[in-house]
């Protein structure tokens, strides 16, 4: 009589195993394809894969991702130089002023930015930077990515500083320094690794976002054109090349995927090592 319950339980177990298997399968396909195609490309092009520009569309040569990688490094680096100071200062402020009207308003604003569809950020920067400047530029792309990454830096810095044990906090304040010195010369250095992980998190966001750069940075494939010239990111390349019918471009897209995954996963790992847990802002 009680048999039915056990049978139902086994059926349920089967269902949830299938359910669990599906995302595992999807992730496996992603990882597998990225690794497979990037290895093929590596075998075919050698180190040139990281230096040469892409081959002719539909041509027999795969080419490489050199200029794209170079552009990515610059544009994300610039984005972080904008976002990091801003994010850290705001994060520190929010952690030290938990009550107070301004604090609550800024906190809400940061959360709003994190919830915004990133394409909206792209449109905003498009109209505020690209239109006046008359075109797509690395600067615009960097600003766009900076805005997208900002909330993650703020939240992480705030969490890190709030978690300083009160004994250390009290000790720092008991030295009688002016408040900004206590915070910036004692409390923040105490949380060095937390702040570093916040910046890493922001960088990971900047690497992975596509929509902000889609509308602002152009699509430079063959060279580096400076601050006001068109630029590119690896994620943008995936977006464009994956939709082309050309085999060599699709191989490059998967290779770019592999690079992105490697970057995101290693950054995640580092953040986790430092922090132990990330808030899902």
């Amino acid at each position, binding site marked *: 009589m009680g048999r039915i319950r056990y049978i139902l339980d086994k059926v349920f177990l089967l269902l949830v195993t299938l359910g669990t298997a599906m995302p595992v399968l999807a*992730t496996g396909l992603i990882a597998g394809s990225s690794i497979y195609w990037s290895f093929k490309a590596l075998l075919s092009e050698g180190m040139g894969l990281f230096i040469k520009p892409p081959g002719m569309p539909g041509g027999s040569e795969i080419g490489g991702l050199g200029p794209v990688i170079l552009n990515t490094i610059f544009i994300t680096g610039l984005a972080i130089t904008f976002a990091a100071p801003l994010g850290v200062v705001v994060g520190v402020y929010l952690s030290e002023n938990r009550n107070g009207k301004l604090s609550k308003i800024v906190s809400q604003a940061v959360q709003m930015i994190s919830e915004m569809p990133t*394409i909206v950020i792209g449109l905003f920067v498009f109209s505020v930077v690209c239109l006046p400047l008359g075109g797509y530029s690395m600067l615009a792309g960097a600003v766009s990515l900076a805005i997208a990454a900002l909330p993650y830096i703020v939240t992480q810095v705030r969490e890190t500083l709030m978690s300083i044990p009160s004994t250390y906090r009290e000790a720092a304040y008991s030295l009688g320094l002016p408040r900004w010195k206590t915070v910036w010369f004692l409390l923040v250095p105490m949380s060095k690794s937390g702040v570093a992980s916040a910046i890493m998190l922001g960088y990971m966001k900047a690497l992975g976002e596509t929509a902000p750069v889609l509308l602002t940075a152009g699509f430079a494939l063959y060279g580096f054109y400076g601050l006001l010239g068109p630029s590119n990111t690896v994620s943008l390349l995936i977006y464009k090349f994956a939709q082309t019918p050309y085999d060599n471009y699709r191989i490059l897209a998967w290779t770019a995927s592999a690079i992105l995954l490697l970057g995101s996963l290693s950054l995640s790992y580092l953040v986790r090592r430092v922090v132990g847990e990330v808030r899902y802002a």
Partner: protein
Amino acid sequence: MTIVLYHYIRVIGQRKMNIHDDLNLLSLPFLVIVLAIVVGVFLVLLANSMTTFTREGINFLIGSNWSPSSETYQILPALTGTFYTSVIAVLLALPISLGLVAFTYEYMPITIRETIKSSLYYAAAIPTVVYGIWGLEFVVPAVRKFIEFWGLTASPTGQSILAGAIVLAFMNIPYMSLIISEVYGKIPFTYIEAMHSLGALGYERLRIKYGMVKGAVLGASLLVFGKCVGETTAVSMVVGNSFNLALSPLMPGITISSLIVNYVSETSLYNYMTGALFAAALVMLVSSSLFILLGMWVARRLVIGGGEWGG
């Protein structure tokens, strides 16, 4: 002169905003920048959308005529496409996420649980565009084969609302599972013991626990729905970008985000297209934020058993 200005600002700051020390004063410009960004986004969107709203009126939202050549911009198919893909996505993601959480907590030993949660954490870090290329290379052909197998009249390439929904669903499963398992794991051990002492089996325990965390599950669903509404790159790669109002999810469709992305390069050719895209973006921003905020509110309020352990 600057010293005078500094002291002046300081006094004003003290009186008006209770900024009574140097830390906050020094941080002020940075805070202002953040506020300026948010305000700026809304202002820019509003300013650029005004002409479109005045030109099209309510037809902007309820009309299906998008023809740039006649400078008519109506986005109903994009609206329905957005909501259609997002609804199906949540309906797909929810049972899989719940199943994953049930699998992890009811049938797996504690050591494996941690491995699974770690993997979810890393899976949630995968950039969305990678899900897009996965969708193009694996999901779209699968949908196409399905359509061919059953001989249906639907999307010829496989790019469809369904493909968009599948990509959205899988993109959000790690995140959703993590949210749910967070609350799930916080259920006090004494209830777990009570359930076991009553002889409840795996799926029975899930039912009881689900009753306790319903609020978080509902909240997570709304949150993910809001995120799906705002998602751009992955969806536009697989949804087909055709102005369709069809009922079948196997037909290609269009979402607000993919609309913007596809037409942004043509704005210089037309007078009023830019405005229309901004207006569409505004609609998307408002709807997406609405659901995300609703989701967070629900998750906070409706976890039964008290907010203490209800995250």
